[in-house]
């Protein structure tokens, strides 16, 4: 087939494009994904009963600030990683910032502690379940975000998968933090990040296969 014939074929008929292509995919994907994650959390885990009380403690807001900032930074990177030819370096720095700040805060807190207490603060009461529950809750937003990206055009598939996974993990952590009894920064800096990294790893692994176009 001649290339000019292919061009005539492609340009024939109605070639209009609907605008806001990214919003039309990411808004339903993330909205429904979050809703499903929230329902899973309420049904399987339940909101912590002393939530109102916990919200009066500054550490609660440190944790909430971290997960929301991380989700926002990942969300801001989505249009960049889903479009061909857009520079990404700053968006990646922005994604790295919340974990770095939290690690500094956690390290400062641990340094001040009696060495004998440090392990107990890092491990908390729920370190065994926290990462897996976050990974579990990240499943609906993860599937939604992959679907959204499949309709767009990421060119760095491994990175796109990893960032999409990281976003779904951060969104799941936002939901999970309403259940989670832990407040200490060293706990969040370790086990939350580990949980958030599980879908990110899955995204990096499967991105090149699932996001190809």
């Amino acid at each position, binding site marked *: *087939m*001649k*290339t000019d014939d*292919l061009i005539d074929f492609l*340009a024939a008929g109605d070639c209009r494009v609907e605008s806001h292509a990214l919003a039309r995919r990411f808004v339903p994907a993330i909205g429904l994904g979050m809703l499903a994650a929230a329902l899973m959390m309420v049904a399987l885990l339940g909101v912590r009963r002393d939530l109102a009380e916990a919200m009066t403690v500054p550490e609660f807001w440190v944790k909430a600030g971290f997960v929301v900032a991380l989700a926002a930074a990942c969300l801001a990177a989505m249009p960049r990683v889903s479009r061909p030819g857009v520079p990404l370096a700053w968006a990646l720095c922005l994604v790295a910032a919340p974990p770095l700040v939290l690690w500094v805060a956690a390290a400062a807190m641990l340094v001040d502690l009696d060495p004998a207490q440090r392990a107990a603060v890092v491990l908390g009461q729920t370190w065994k379940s926290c990462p897996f529950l976050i990974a579990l809750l990240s499943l609906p937003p993860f599937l939604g975000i992959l679907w959204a990206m499949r309709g767009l055009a990421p060119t760095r598939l491994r990175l796109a998968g990893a960032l999409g996974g990281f976003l779904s993990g951060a969104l799941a952590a936002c939901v999970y933090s309403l259940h989670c009894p832990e407040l200490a920064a060293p706990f969040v800096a370790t086990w939350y990040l580990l949980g958030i990294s599980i879908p990110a790893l899955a995204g990096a692994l499967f991105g090149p296969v699932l996001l190809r176009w």
Partner: protein
Amino acid sequence: MQRIDKEEVLRAKEARLRQLMLDGMAGDSAAYRSFLKELSTHLRAFLRKRLSRLPDEVEDLVQESLLAIHNQRHTYDAAQPLSAWVQAIARYKLVDYLRRHATKDALTETLDEGMDVFLATDVAAADARRDVLQLLDALPDGQRLPIIQTKIEGLSVKEAAQRSGMSESAVKVAVHRGLKALAARMRGER
């Protein structure tokens, strides 16, 4: 002096192609056709330089890139340089192609970041070895017929919808999905 000329040529080209693309996205088929025609000369030059060891493959890859650009054109953001968007797609398709054919060694030093895609043109189109319209035959009727009606027989979306009993938006979705399936077949999937 020569450098300034080059930059000016690029800027003018970027502005003109971008306008054609945006007019096309707004529904101007003639502008869109001119955009694809002119773009194909740049893609050909860009890919020929990088596929110097596989000259017979160039036109296949030009067509694959054109189909990709058509299918993903909703991801172009008017605030972004068109050349960056086009070049990223051409590079992506080139790397995907080389990986597919396991000829990574053909990736010579010419796969550099620089070299603006709009700088060079090549109008000497060889025939592609693959016929895209033959690939169309393998699609399911639900996608194939709307594509044939709107893209080859020249029916409007409304007429195609009436003929097939589908809604207009279903026709549009079927055409879009069908063209994406065509791109998958060009990559040799399924």
